[in-house]
Every structure is written in structure tokens, then in C-alpha cells.
């Protein structure tokens, strides 16, 4: 019995949702501190249910802290970041009709990274650091936008080129900040942050970055049928009543918001927004009404699995940004080869 591609496309979102839920539960089990699976389940139930319905608390305080304060915020933050990056990548690729673009193309990641390591240099922490990274991302977007307006003709290509310039500029500034940082106290934190990690995940971070990611992600999902029209081409979209330029800018701003929030919480995590939409497109096809929610779910699942590997592969936690790059590049090369043969729209 074989499943047709249309059935697979219909089942993809529920299946991905179920897989993500199972992966989240499995991830709550993973950690250095030993917590039995049953205890993990009971702690999670106690955390979720009202006091009257919660199971009796026969766990130690360390087990409670390990599950609810260390692992749960991390799992939620990873899922949120992965979903945001997957969604942002799919929306951008659809909008630009180009499978080689990722959500960090307009220099937002480099700008947010600059804000973050500047915050480390200045001893900012918590919300101040998040705000600095977010501001850095927004400044980068503004600069890229300004550069794109200097050229004639407008459109997206000048923005992409402006983004490359801005990213190079902020990458240079990042190098300068690392150069002047105290090699004993500041530099390790900067380097670790630049290569991405969710090790410092907390409820506070989750509360800070969830609103921009959920808001921007929700709006992108709401725009999914318009992205379909954009992916037909500029003229077709305009003839169907879409105000193309305005919609493009809106999508870019929403993507920027997601990326800046993600970078501010966990440093630079590359390749997710580039690879995930490709994989998802193989599952559900090019229709953005399915592709966007499926990319969000698959992005969350992919990043969660990467984070689990990062936590367990070695005695010392590996930076997730390195892992996503190591896994993402060969996968992307393979997908690129496959899709070259068929055409990226799969049609």
C-alpha cells in the first residue's frame, strides 16, 4: 500500500505535529542529571495541571528544577526558534522565488550578533542583552533598506545586495569587538554566543522572545496565500490585485523580527531557515498554505533534534550553530542537486 503525494501533503501537518510533541517529551528526558522517565512525565503533568489534579510530588527538588527550570524552557525556546526560522525561510524563498535565500540574507543575523557581543563587552545581561541584539538586528535591516533605496529600480535584489554589504560591515565590527575583549573573561562568552547555543535558555528569555516570534510568525502564516500569489511572479501577483512592493517589505520586516529575536536569545544558528523549507517542500509540495505551517513544525523538530545531539554527543555541550551548519551544508548540497534535476517548484 503506497501513500500518494497528495495524501502525504494532507497528513504532513498532523504527522509533524505529533512527531514534534513526541520529540519534545523525549527531549525533556535528556540531560546530565538523572531523572527517571516516569518522574519526568509526572513533573510535566504537575507543571501543566492545576494543583488539585496534579500528581503527588514524590520527586526531589533537583529533579523538579532539572525538568521544569532547565529543560522545559530550553525545549520550548528551541522549538520556538526552529519554528520561526523554518517559517521565515519558507516565506522568504516563496516571496523571492529563489530557493537559495535564507532568513539572514539582509544582514539581520550579523547585526543582531553585533548587538549581542557588544552587550557582553559592556557587561549587559538579561533583557538588556536581548534588547541590544534586537536593536542590532533592526539597525542592520534599516541600513540594508537605506542602501537598497540608493540604487535605481528598487525591488528585492538591491535589498539583498545591501544586506550582503551590511552583513560584511557588522562581521568586521564583530571581529573588532572580539579583538578588544578580555581573552580571559569576555572572549569565551562572545565566541560561544556567536556560534549559537541554547544552554542559557530560561523562562525569562522565552517570555522576552516569544511575543515577537509568535506575532511575526502568526502574521506570516496569515499571509500564506498571498505568498502563493507572490511565488507566481511579480506581474501575475500584481494582476491579481496584490500590492507587491508593500507585501514584500512587510514579509521582510516580519522575517527580520523573527531572526533578531532568535539571535538575541541563542546566538547565531544558521542553515535552519535555508534547509528546512527544502525538506518540507519535498513533503508537502510548493503550496505555501501547507508549506508555511509545515516548515514551522519541521523547523522546530529539526532544531530540537540538533539541540538534543548538541547536549548529548560529547561530555561538553556542542554549539548548536556549528551542528546545524555541519548537518545543514551537506543536506543542502544534496537537496540542491536533487532539486536542480526537477526544478525547485516541484511542478
Amino acid at each position, binding site marked *: 500500500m503506497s501513500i500518494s503525494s497528495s495524501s502525504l501533503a494532507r497528513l504532513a501537518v498532523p504527522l509533524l505535529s505529533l512527531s514534534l510533541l513526541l520529540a519534545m517529551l523525549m527531549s525533556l528526558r535528556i540531560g546530565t542529571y538523572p531523572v527517571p522517565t516516569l518522574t519526568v512525565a509526572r513533573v510535566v503533568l504537575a507543571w501543566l495541571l492545576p494543583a488539585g489534579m496534579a500528581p503527588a510530588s514524590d520527586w526531589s527538588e533537583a529533579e*523538579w528544577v532539572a525538568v521544569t527550570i532547565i529543560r522545559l524552557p530550553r525545549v520550548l525556546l528551541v522549538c520556538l526558534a526552529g519554528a520561526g526560522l523554518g517559517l521565515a525561510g519558507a516565506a522568504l524563498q516563496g516571496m523571492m522565488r529563489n530557493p537559495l535565500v535564507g532568513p539572514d540574507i539582509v544582514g539581520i543575523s550579523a547585526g543582531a550578533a553585533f548587538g549581542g557581543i557588544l552587550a557582553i563587552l559592556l557587561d549587559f545581561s538579561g533583557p538588556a542583552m536581548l534588547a541590544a541584539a534586537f536593536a542590532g538586528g533592526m539597525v542592520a535591516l534599516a541600513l540594508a533598506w537605506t542602501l537598497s533605496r540608493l540604487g535605481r529600480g528598487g525591488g528585492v535584489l538591491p535589498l539583498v545586495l545591501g544586506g550582503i554589504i551590511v552583513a560584511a560591515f557588522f562581521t568586521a565590527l564583530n571581529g573588532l569587538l572580539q579583538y578588544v575583549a578580555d581573552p580571559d573573561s569576555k572572549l569565551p562568552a562572545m565566541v560561544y554566543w556567536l556560534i549559537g547555543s541554547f544552554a542559557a535558555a530560561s523562562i525569562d528569555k522565552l517570555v522576552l522572545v516569544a511575543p515577537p516570534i509568535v506575532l511575526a510568525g502568526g502574521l506570516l502564516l496569515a499571509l500564506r496565500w498571498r505568498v502563493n500569489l507572490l511565488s507566481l511572479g511579480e506581474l501575475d501577483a500584481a494582476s491579481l490585485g496584490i500590492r507587491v512592493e508593500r507585501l514584500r517589505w512587510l514579509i521582510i520586516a516580519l522575517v527580520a523580527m523573527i531572526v533578531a529575536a532568535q539571535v538575541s536569545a541563542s546566538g547565531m544558528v544558521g542553515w535552519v531557515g535555508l534547509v528546512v523549507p527544502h525538506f518540507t517542500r519535498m513533503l508537502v509540495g510548493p503550496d505555501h498554505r501547507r508549506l508555511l505551517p509545515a516548515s514551522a513544525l519541521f523547523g522546530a523538530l529539526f532544531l530540537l533534534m540538533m539541540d538534543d545531539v548538541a547536549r548529548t554527543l560529547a561530555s561538553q555541550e556542542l554549539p548548536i550553530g556549528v551542528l546545524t551548519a555541519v548537518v545543514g551544508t551537506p543536506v543542502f548540497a544534496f537537496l540542491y542537486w536533487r532539486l536542480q534535476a526537477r526544478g525547485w517548484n516541484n511542478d
Partner: protein
Amino acid sequence: MRLILTSVALAVLCLVRTGEAQTPPPQDQRGRDVSVAAPAQRVVTFNSVLWLYLTLERGAGPIAGASASTVRTVSTGLLDRAFPSAAAIPTDVSVDGFFVPNVEAILRRAPDAVFQWVGRNDPAYLEPLDRAGLPVVALRQTRDERDYFSTARLIGAVSGRSARAEALIDDYRDSYARLDHHVQAGLQATKGRRQRVLYLWKWRPLIPIDGKNFFGTLLERAGGVNVAAQLARPERVSMEKILLWDPEVVVLFCCDRTTPSDLYQDPMWRPVSAVRNRRVYKVPSGGSRFADLVEGPLYSRWLTELLFPELPSTLRGDLRQTFQQVYGLDLDDDTLDHTLHMKVNSVSAGYDRFSRSLTQESLRP
């Protein structure tokens, strides 16, 4: 017979002279001969050797340049009182303010010796100096007390203060002999049980003092067990690892902004024994980060008194006497409170034993 005796005497004399002529020059810590005509008139320092050089030299006179980070440590700590002129030491010898040398600035000063790290980013830190033909004295990061002694002797040889270096080494050994005696007494009271101690070098990210770090050795010598001894290098650990170690005492690096209250207020730390029993302490800052030949024994004394509360507290007296003997400084109570971080540590259990009203005088001779 006389001829034979004369020949023997001449032969012995020749041997003695040959022996004198062959006295090897001191070697730096990468095994190269140090051929500096002591006392050096101009030296440049990049690492923590600055404060020991000042201590042996009793002044900043020959220091022609030093990295900004080490000058800052001196000028913002207790050593500033002993060596106020150190704040004016030129810092342009380093291009990044730390360990990357500015070779032209160093060449301009024509130093007799340049003290630099070896085994630590050598291509950036050491090689430019070697290529320029500068008289480098290479020092590695301290692994054990033999490195302390070797460093002190090297500085002594270069500065012509060998006798003073030996005196400091003797003081160091005497201090630890007394401390060992007290630690044994403390361990007898606890039936040999040593408490689990975590020395947190950085709080965010979590980086403990590892098993190879000399601070870890001093921690063990103070009567504790380094919970991170299994780590072979400074590396980031997860919070779950710390829950697993469950240290009974946590000590925080002296010279950053982390305080015991940060850990007490962090819900992740709530189950850790040291936090439950409010036994998190910030290491005093002293003049040289409570480390090295002069302050290393004070750090161990401080920790021993925290680990064994039944022992008499002599730390304030020891601090006073050490700074008086080594630097000629009279430390008042306010200064001692500041260097012991009395304010930020007041929220922790038993720290009042270091308060000005409760401590005994030093037992140092």
C-alpha cells in the same frame, strides 16, 4: 711529593674554576637560557608577572611597559597603595590591551627583558617578539607551586633580587606548613571528610576551575575537594552537571560582578546544597586577585576558615601582617572589609567570622 700535592691542588682549582665557569644561566619556562645582565634596567611585562616584579623590585622603576589589563589590576587593587606610580606604566606595548605585543613600541624602549606567556596562543603572543630578536623570558601559566617558585626565581635573577625572591618563597612555604597543620586539625574534627567545593570562575557561561588549574590544587590544599577535578581544562559545564556535583560550598572568582546573591536568586541553583545552606562566597580581591606567591596562601587560609568554622580565624591579622611585611602597608579595617567583600558576602552563612570584631590576630611569626 710536593710536586704531586701541587698538581692535585692545581687540578682541584681548575675543576672548581671550570665548575664556576659552567654555572648554567637561568632558563625560562620553555627551556631557553635567559641571558640578561642583572639587574635589568628596562623590562616589559605582558602577564601577571607584573605584580610579582613590582613586589620584588619594591617599585615600578624598571617597568618600561606592561599590558593595560595588568596595569589596571594593579591600579584598581590594594597594590595601588604600595606602588602608586604603577598606574603611569606605559601600556602601548600591547595592541589589544592584553597579550598581543606591539613590537615597534617594545623595540622603541629597548628592553633588557620581555616577560610573555608561552603555550598560550604562541603564534600571536610569543612569535612576533622572537622574530624581532627581543630578549624574551617565556612563562607558562601556573600548574603547580614549582611554577610559582620558578617564576619568582626568574624574576629575581632578571631584577637582581634573588635574595628577596627566596625570602618570599620561604614565607610561602612557612604559610602552607602552618595551614597544613590547621587543615589536619580541621579534618580530624570532621573525621577526615572533605567538603565538596566548586570554584566558579565564570557564572555565565558556567565555567569552573578545572582539575589542572592551580586554584584547584590550592582549593584541595585548603581542605576541600574540587568537584570539577575531572575536567582537564577550563570548559563550559551544564547546570545539570552542577546539580549532579551538588557542591557544599561555592566560591566565586574575585574580580567580576557575580555575587553570592546572584546564585541565591537564581531558581536553577535552588537545589544545590551550597545555596540551600547559603554557603556561596566571593573570593577576596586583595592586590593580585588573591593568587600568586604572596596572596595564594591567604586565599587558602580564607577557604580553610570557611570550610572548618571551628578553627580560629586569623585571616584579617594575616592579611594585615602580610601587607605590612611585604609592602610596608598598614591596612585599616575599612580596607580589609572592602578586600574581603564583606558587604556582598554578608548574605552568606558564617562570613561574619571575618568581621572586624570577631577575628583573632595573625599566627604568623
